[in-house]
């Protein structure tokens, strides 16, 4: 099998052609999957709203407010029924053990936590991933609690939250994310 000689022009032309064809193919696939990817992300968010908010009849994506607290900006989504706000979903995040933990927290209008859904996490399987409802009922201890009188930190730090065994860092991060969401909610309520 005779290969092409490695002259300068041969190499330049070959690399140019290879990258050209590759990028054209990638652009084509990108265009093709653009819509389904957006749909999948939207679907994920809608699913999260259905979990964290009480029954609503509007589209929370259209009732979005950006609230800045200190250095961070939070997205708040209002869930309404018959024109009345029945719940507020707050997107929040914090640094966990394996990476960022992204949550959507649903609050009732009185400021108490309704439900929490985990959007993204990289916590250890079998330990830190107990923050997921599908893995354990640890996260149910927050439901119905109002952070005004429920201290969002683990018992070891003087709070009211039972940490996950062997996953204190994850539990702390989860509480921190909830606290941030609550702060954003309070700031948003004032505005």
């Amino acid at each position, binding site marked *: 099998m005779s290969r092409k000689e490695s002259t300068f022009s041969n190499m330049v032309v070959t690399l140019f052609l290879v990258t050209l064809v590759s990028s054209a193919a990638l652009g084509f696939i990108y265009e093709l999957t653009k819509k389904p990817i957006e749909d999948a992300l939207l679907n994920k968010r809608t*699913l999260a709203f259905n979990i964290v908010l009480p029954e609503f009849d509007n589209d929370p994506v259209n009732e979005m407010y950006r609230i800045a607290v200190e250095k961070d900006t939070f997205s708040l989504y209002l869930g309404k029924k018959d024109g009345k706000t029945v719940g507020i979903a707050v997107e929040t995040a914090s640094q966990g053990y394996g990476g960022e933990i992204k949550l959507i927290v649903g609050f009732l209008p009185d400021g108490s936590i309704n439900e929490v859904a985990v959007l993204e996490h990289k916590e250890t399987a*079998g330990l830190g991933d107990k923050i*997921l409802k599908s893995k354990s009922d640890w996260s149910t201890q927050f439901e119905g609690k109002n952070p005004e009188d429920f201290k969002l930190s683990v018992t070891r730090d003087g709070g009211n939250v039972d940490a996950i065994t062997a996953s204190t860092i994850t539990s702390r991060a989860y509480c921190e994310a909830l606290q941030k969401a609550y702060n954003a909610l309070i700031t948003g309520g004032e505005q």
Partner: protein
Amino acid sequence: MSQWKNFTKGFIKENPVFVLFLGLCPTLGTTNSAINGIGMGLATTFVLVMSNLVVSLIARLIPDKVRIPSYIVIIASFVTIVDLIMKAFLNNPGPNFEPSLYDQLGIFIPLIVVNCIVLGRAEAFASKNSVMTSLIDGFGIGMGFTFALLLLGSVREILGSGSIFNIKFIQGDGILLFVSPPGAFLALGFLIMLMNKLSRKIS
């Protein structure tokens, strides 16, 4: 070598994980459940088959000194395609908002680019063999890899979570060690031992 032998060599004789010890990073990283193992294996198989096909087609046209960069560009393109497709169609969370397959495999999908099985097959096999032979080789090695990941994922899920394919058969936790990274090394070590014993018996 017959094409059938060419296909089956990936399972026992030249299994990338148990015999060649290639691609151990995704092997250890993604196999905390059987379904993750299959997902990772199939994604890698797709990249292997496609890159073997393209490399065997154009190997003759590529000057020797730039062959590695060219192969990497080809492989990276297919990996990005897999990533986009999985992000679009395997990205639906479960009914209780369990993370989707795409979210669970996470960073390991883009990392197929640097999986040495893929570049290894392109450089050592596809660039020297005909299109058909390379295609079958890619598929065989890919399925062998999937088989290894499925085996390791099943063992770790059964011991670590007390379930198989997300179906629980014991209450509560299993031996948590096996879902964490050290357990991956342990389980893989014992599997390699068993595979060695098995392949010696066969030959």
